[in-house]
């Protein structure tokens, strides 16, 4: 893991009561997404997360279906990012690794770093690169981790390899809730979203937010993986 210094980023979507820039405390983030091999190690130590054992409550049928069996990868490459993992499984892995999933704010903050700057969102070339990576056709074989250039923080493959779970992926989906900002969920979708959005240039971020908004926690998809993060002790 590498240290990401604290800072702020311009949130793409926000409730009326939220500031336009969200602050992120310094934290640690994994350089690469979790791989098939790493996830296999976890599954071997935690039998309840084997494909044949997992509760339907925690993972849909697609869970790890690209592996040859409960305990063998088969054609799945050990260094490919693990996919077909539910959010519950990703949470369990992170806990096992004495870590956690990054929050949406942390993930987006890191995703905004170009190779030379902590905030590449004003760099048209960077944004164009992110968009083309995000829109890359999903049909081909999944790439391996570790092959892309690192960003400003030393973190790789934030764009283009896999979608990634975040700890609070569903927190923007507030419906029937207690404090009357139910306009929030409407903002996650195309037409209405434009009104509440603060940044029109980062189209890839729109895609990510709408993708997250469509997920449920037991879903497992062939292009959806995760990476882990860790909090730093508060400065004394």
């Amino acid at each position, binding site marked *: 893991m590498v240290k990401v210094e604290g800072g702020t980023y311009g949130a793409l979507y926000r*409730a009326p*009561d*939220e*500031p336009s820039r969200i602050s992120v405390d310094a934290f640690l983030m994994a350089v690469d997404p979790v791989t098939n091999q790493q996830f296999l190690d976890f599954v071997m130590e935690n039998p*309840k997360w084997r494909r044949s054992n997992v*509760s*339907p*409550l*925690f993972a849909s049928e697609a869970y790890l279906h690209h592996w040859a069996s409960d305990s063998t990868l088969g054609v799945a490459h050990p260094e490919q990012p693990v996919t077909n993992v539910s*959010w*519950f499984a990703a*949470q369990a892995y*992170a*806990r096992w690794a004495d870590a*956690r*999933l990054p929050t949406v704010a942390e993930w987006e903050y890191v995703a905004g770093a170009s190779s030379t700057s902590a905030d590449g969102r004003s760099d048209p070339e960077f944004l164009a690169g992110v968009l083309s990576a995000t829109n890359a056709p999903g049909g081909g074989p999944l790439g391996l981790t570790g092959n892309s250039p690192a960003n400003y923080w030393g973190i790789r493959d934030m764009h283009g390899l896999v979608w990634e779970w975040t*700890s*609070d992926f*569903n*927190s*923007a*989906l*507030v*419906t*029937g*809730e*207690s*404090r009357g*900002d139910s306009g*929030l969920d409407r903002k996650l979708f195309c037409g209405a979203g434009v009104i509440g959005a603060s940044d029109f240039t980062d189209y890839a971020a729109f895609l990510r937010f709408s993708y997250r908004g469509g997920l*449920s*926690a037991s879903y497992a998809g062939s292009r959806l993986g995760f990476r882990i993060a860790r909090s730093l002790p508060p400065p004394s």
Partner: protein
Amino acid sequence: MTRLLVLLLVLCVGCADEMHDENAHAGHDKPANEHAGHTTIPPPVEPALGAMSLYQLDTPWTDHTGSERSLASLAGVPVLVAMTYTSCQVSCPVILADLKRIETRLNQADFAARIVLLSLDPERDSPEVLSAFLEDKNLSERWILLRAPDDQVREMAALLGVSYRRTPDGEVSHSNIISVLDAGGNLVYQQLGLGAGKSDETALFLVNDEQ
């Protein structure tokens, strides 16, 4: 010896029953104690958990007495669950009022069930704060207040369909849902939204389901 055999037999019947019906309703597990709310609720029997039991989440929570406890330790009687936080001024008092209204019905029917509040604000809701809340609100023996680190709270919220989000002013926006888990931890009923009419339906579900 004979008694032991009978007990084993009963347990096996219980297992088979559960296997046939994953969403086995609370009715199969009616505890012997008829005076819940006034006397102690029977100790948990820790049955084998079904494939859809929420109690499969096995990371421990901390209750209002400061003791660690697993969700599986709630098994044995049905449980009403709501996700709230103690400093909440807006809807949580209404959730509490709904739950108390349900509790009155449960008491009238001598119905054993627990009421569990899971904190959406684990940072501020320490066991001490939870315990003070319990006392301040005059909550009975039925009530258990639980807190856990954020990742566990998110897991329960995902299973219960509760959306929540912290706001910059230190509040937590959240869905108002009261869930009913059966004695095995299966989600069997949800009250979406609040109010006397809705909580009466929830109470009726519990009590009628049992008879």
